[in-house]
């Protein structure tokens, strides 16, 4: 990062993805909720998620702080919520901790999907339950936590057409942009933002989707 910042003119962010699963057994110290839930051990699974969050926040803040010290223009937490509401909660806590120490650093949060899965189910942040939030509500929680740029992600439904998916992505993103007080940079890529699930998306779908989302939602970036 230090070297990159000496050479680059354009802003350079450090990007990483929260990974709650890494802290569960056998990889990590806390019991594995994916094993506890099928056994009907809901309470134990929730406690395991809460334990994993503590470890995740510590690591996310540690890594992000190092990059801030190295001169990063910002930190990008990407695919937030991939493991559901505990993942989202860990990121919100990490953002709050980071902004306390580095109030001027830009923090971008890009989501993993349009809907926060309730893997815990009762996880709340500032009194708001995280499970079940859609982008227009996700952005409000994120901006309250100190996030500077928010990236809604709308997963492509592979059994539907591109126009259907683009229309759906734009509907969610438009509502998010209208609700946001911070800049919104929608995620658009393989299987996200209306684009097909290919490693090399056809250029016509990329052009169509990006043009449509910019003109209809008036978002601040992609």
């Amino acid at each position, binding site marked *: 990062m230090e070297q990159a910042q000496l050479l680059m003119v354009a*802003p350079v962010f450090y990007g990483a993805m929260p990974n709650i699963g890494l802290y569960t057994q056998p990889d990590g110290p806390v019991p594995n909720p994916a094993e506890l839930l099928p056994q009907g051990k809901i309470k134990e699974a929730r406690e395991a998620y809460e334990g994993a969050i503590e470890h995740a926040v510590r690591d996310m803040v540690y890594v992000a702080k190092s990059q801030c010290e190295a*001169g990063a223009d910002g930190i990008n937490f990407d695919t937030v919520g991939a493991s559901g509401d505990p993942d989202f909660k860990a990121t919100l806590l990490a953002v709050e901790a980071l902004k306390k120490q580095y109030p001027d650093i830009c923090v971008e949060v890009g989501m993993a999907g349009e809907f926060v899965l309730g893997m815990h189910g009762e996880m709340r942040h500032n009194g708001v339950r995280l499970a079940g939030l859609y982008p227009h509500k996700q952005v409000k929680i994120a901006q309250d936590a100190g996030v500077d740029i928010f990236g809604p992600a709308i997963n492509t439904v592979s059994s539907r057409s591109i126009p259907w998916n683009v229309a759906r992505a734009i509907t969610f993103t438009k509502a998010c942009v209208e609700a946001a007080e911070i800049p919104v940079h929608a995620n658009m890529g393989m299987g996200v933002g209306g684009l097909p699930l290919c490693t090399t998306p056809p250029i016509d779908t990329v052009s169509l989707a990006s043009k449509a989302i910019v003109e209809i939602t008036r978002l601040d970036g992609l």
Partner: protein
Amino acid sequence: MTSGMGGMRTSGDLVARMQMTKGMKIKAAKKFVADKLGVAVNELTDAAVMGEVREDLKIGGVYSSMGSPKGIEAKHHIADLLGIEINSLKRFRHNTR
């Protein structure tokens, strides 16, 4: 991270910096940058105009030419021009004291 608009070929990085540092939405960020550069908003995406503007203001371009500011040097001018703080610049100044 250049907020599209042709990136450093035009003014994408500058507009991005205003979104990042001041939380400006795109319309306000583009107006702010256009005013600072002394160009019209619709000229922000004109590569020919912006190429000359960037060279004159020494804020870096896609193609580096001999003697033109590059990297951290260009960022120094960007920070002065836009009136913003750039993290890497702050650290550079601290380390070179």
